[in-house]
C-alpha cells in the first residue's frame, strides 16, 4: 500500500504543477498586453500600466511563472485587483459557503443514486430500468442553472416551499441554514444523480453476472447478503471514481445555481471577479478548484486501492 500511495502522490504533484502551468499560460503568455485587452481600447494608459503592474505582467515571464507555481503550492494567491485585499480572504470564506451547499447536495445524491442504481440493475432492461436510466440521462444533460430556475419557479415561488434567496441570515445555525440551502442542493442533485446512478447500475449488473456472485448464491446466502457483502463491494469502485470526478465538475455547475439563488459562494465570487476583471481572484479560484479535484481523485484512488487489493498489487508488479 505504501508504494502505491507514494506513486499516486507523485503523479498528483506532477499534475498539479502542469495545472498551474496551464493557468499561467492562459493569463500570461497569450500575445499582447493583458491590461489593454482587459480594460479595453479607451482605458487610460496609466490605468493599463497600473493593472499590468498589479497583476505582475510587467515583470519577466519566468518570474511570473514561478510566482504562479509558488502560489499554488503555498496556497496564497496574491491580492485582489479590485479590493486590494488578499485573494485568500475573498475566496476561502466563499469556498466554505459553496462547500456547505456541495456537501448537502452529495448527502442527498449519493444514497439516492446508489439505491436507484441497484434498483435499475436488478430490473435490467425492464420498463422501470429504462425509466431510471432515461430520466438520469435527461436530467444530467440539462445545465444546472436551467434546473435551478425551474425549481425556483415551481418549488419556491408557486408552491412557496423554499426560499428564493439561498443566503441564510447571519445568525442562523447549521440546522437553521438547511431550509435555505435545500432547493439549490436539490437542483445540483438532479444534475449529478444520473451519472452516479449509471455507474452504480453498471457495476451491479457486472457483479450480478460474475462468478463470485453465483458462488455466493449457491453457498446459500440470501439475495440481500449477496448484494451487500459481495456485489456492492465490487461495484463501489467505479462509483467512487465517478463521485470524486463529480466533485471537480460540481464547482463548475455551482456557478449557475448560485447565480439563480443569489448565494454568495465561490461561483458568485467568481462572477463578480469576471465583472470587475479581477484576474488574481479568478486565477486563485481556478487553481483552488483544480487542487480540490486533485485531492478528491487522489483520495478516491487510495480508497479504491484499500478496498480492492488487486489494484495496489498491480503497481507492485
Amino acid at each position, binding site marked *: 500500500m505504501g508504494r502505491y500511495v507514494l506513486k499516486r502522490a507523485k503523479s498528483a504533484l506532477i499534475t498539479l504543477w502542469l495545472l498551474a502551468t496551464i493557468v499561467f499560460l492562459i493569463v500570461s503568455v497569450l500575445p499582447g498586453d493583458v491590461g489593454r485587452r482587459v480594460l479595453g481600447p479607451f482605458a487610460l494608459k496609466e490605468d493599463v500600466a497600473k493593472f499590468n503592474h498589479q497583476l505582475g505582467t510587467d515583470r519577466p515571464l519566468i518570474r511570473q511563472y514561478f510566482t504562479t507555481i509558488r502560489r499554488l503550492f503555498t496556497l496564497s494567491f496574491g491580492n485582489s485587483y479590485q479590493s486590494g485585499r488578499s485573494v485568500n480572504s475573498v475566496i476561502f470564506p466563499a469556498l466554505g459557503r459553496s462547500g456547505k451547499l456541495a456537501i448537502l447536495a452529495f448527502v442527498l445524491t449519493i444514497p439516492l443514486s446508489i439505491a436507484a442504481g441497484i434498483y435499475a440493475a436488478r430490473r435490467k432492461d425492464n420498463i422501470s430500468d429504462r425509466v431510471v436510466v432515461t430520466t438520469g440521462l435527461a436530467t444530467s*444533460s440539462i*445545465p444546472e442553472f*436551467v434546473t435551478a430556475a425551474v425549481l*425556483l419557479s415551481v418549488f*419556491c415561488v408557486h408552491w412557496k416551499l423554499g426560499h*428564493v434567496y439561498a443566503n441564510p441570515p447571519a445568525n442562523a445555525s447549521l440546522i437553521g441554514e438547511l431550509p435555505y440551502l435545500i432547493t439549490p442542493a436539490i437542483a445540483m442533485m438532479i444534475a449529478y444523480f444520473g451519472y452516479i446512478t449509471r455507474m452504480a447500475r453498471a457495476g451491479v449488473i457486472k457483479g450480478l453476472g460474475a462468478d463470485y456472485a453465483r458462488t455466493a448464491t449457491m453457498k446459500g446466502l440470501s439475495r440481500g447478503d449477496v448484494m451487500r457483502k459481495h456485489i456492492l463491494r465490487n461495484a463501489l469502485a467505479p462509483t467512487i471514481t465517478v463521485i470524486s470526478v463529480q466533485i471537480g*465538475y460540481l464547482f*463548475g455547475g455551482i456557478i449557475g445555481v448560485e447565480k439563480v439563488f443569489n448565494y454568495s459562494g465561490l461561483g458568485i465570487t467568481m462572477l463578480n471577479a*469576471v465583472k470587475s476583471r479581477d484576474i488574481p481572484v479568478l486565477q486563485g479560484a481556478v487553481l483552488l478548484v483544480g487542487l480540490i479535484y486533485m485531492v478528491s481523485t487522489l483520495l478516491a484512488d487510495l480508497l479504491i486501492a484499500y478496498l480492492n487489493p488487486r489494484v495496489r498489487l498491480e503497481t507492485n508488479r
Partner: protein
Amino acid sequence: MSDSANDAPVSLPDDLDLPPDVVALSGAVQLSERKQARKENWRLIRRRPAFIVGVIIVLIWVVCALLGDRITPHSPLDFRVKPHLSPRSAYPFGTDISGRDVLSRVMAGAKDVLKVAPLAALLGVFFGVIVGLVMGYIGGWLDNILSRIVEAFLALPVLLVALLAVTTLGVTTGVVTGVVAALFTPVVARTVRSAVISERDLDYVTSAKLRGESAFFVMFREILPNVSGPIIVELTVRIGYAVFTVATLSFVGAGPQPPSPDWGVQVSDSFRSISAGIWWTTMFPAAAIASLVIAVNLIADSVQSVVEAS
C-alpha cells in the same frame, strides 16, 4: 470493442473488382467489411425511437436558427408591445420585460448556441483525434508527457477555465468556440488513445508497417478508419456537452450580450422576475435549452449503444 472485422472470417463480395495484389492485403478486405458494418450500424441507429425523437427536435431548432426572424411571428428585438403580458393567443409565450415577444426570441435564440456549440465540439474532436492517434500509436515518452498534460486538463473544471479565458481574452464568439474546443481536446484525446492502443498491435497494422508505410499513413489511413466508431460516439457526446457549456457560459455573462435573444442570456435577464410570478420569460428559453441538450443526448446515446454493441 469497436472492431470485430479483424477476427471475422474473410468473405469477399463477388463483384469486388480489385487487382489481386490489393486483395491480398488485409486492409482492402477490411475496407469492404467495414463499409458493410457501418451500413448495418447506421440502419440500427435509424430504427431507434430515441434517435428519431432527438433528430426531429434538433432539426426544429436548426430550422429556427437558419431562418431566424423570417419565420418568427414577431421581430425578436421589437419592443413595441406591452411588457410582461402573460401567454395568450397573439403571444403564445407572452412578452418579456421590454415588451418583446418571447416565442420569437426563443425561436431566434437557437442561432447563437447552434453557431458555437457544434463547431466547438467538431474542433475539439478534430484536434483530440490527432493528439490521441499520436499518443496511442507512437507511445513512449511522448505518450507519457501528453498523458500528464491531458490529466492536468481534466483537473480543470471547464466552466471555470472558460470564465478565466474569456475574461483575459475578451468575450467574442471566436474565443468562446476556441476555449471550449481547447478544453474538449484532451478529453477526446484520451478516448482516442485507448481505442488506438487496442488496435496498434493487430495484424493489419503490423502488415502496414512491414510494407514500409510511414507512421502518418498507418495512423490516418489504417488505424483511424478502424477507430471511427468511438470517435463518432465522442463527437455526438461532445456536441451535447458543448451545448451545455455554451448555454451556461452565456447565462453567466460570458457569451452573447443583451439584447441578443440567446437562450442563456434570456434566462439570465429574466429569472429575477420569477419571484414576482412572471415565469414565462424564464421558463420558455429554459425549456428550449433543456429540449436541445436532451435531444442531442438522445442521439448520442443511440449512437453509443449501437456502436458499442457492434
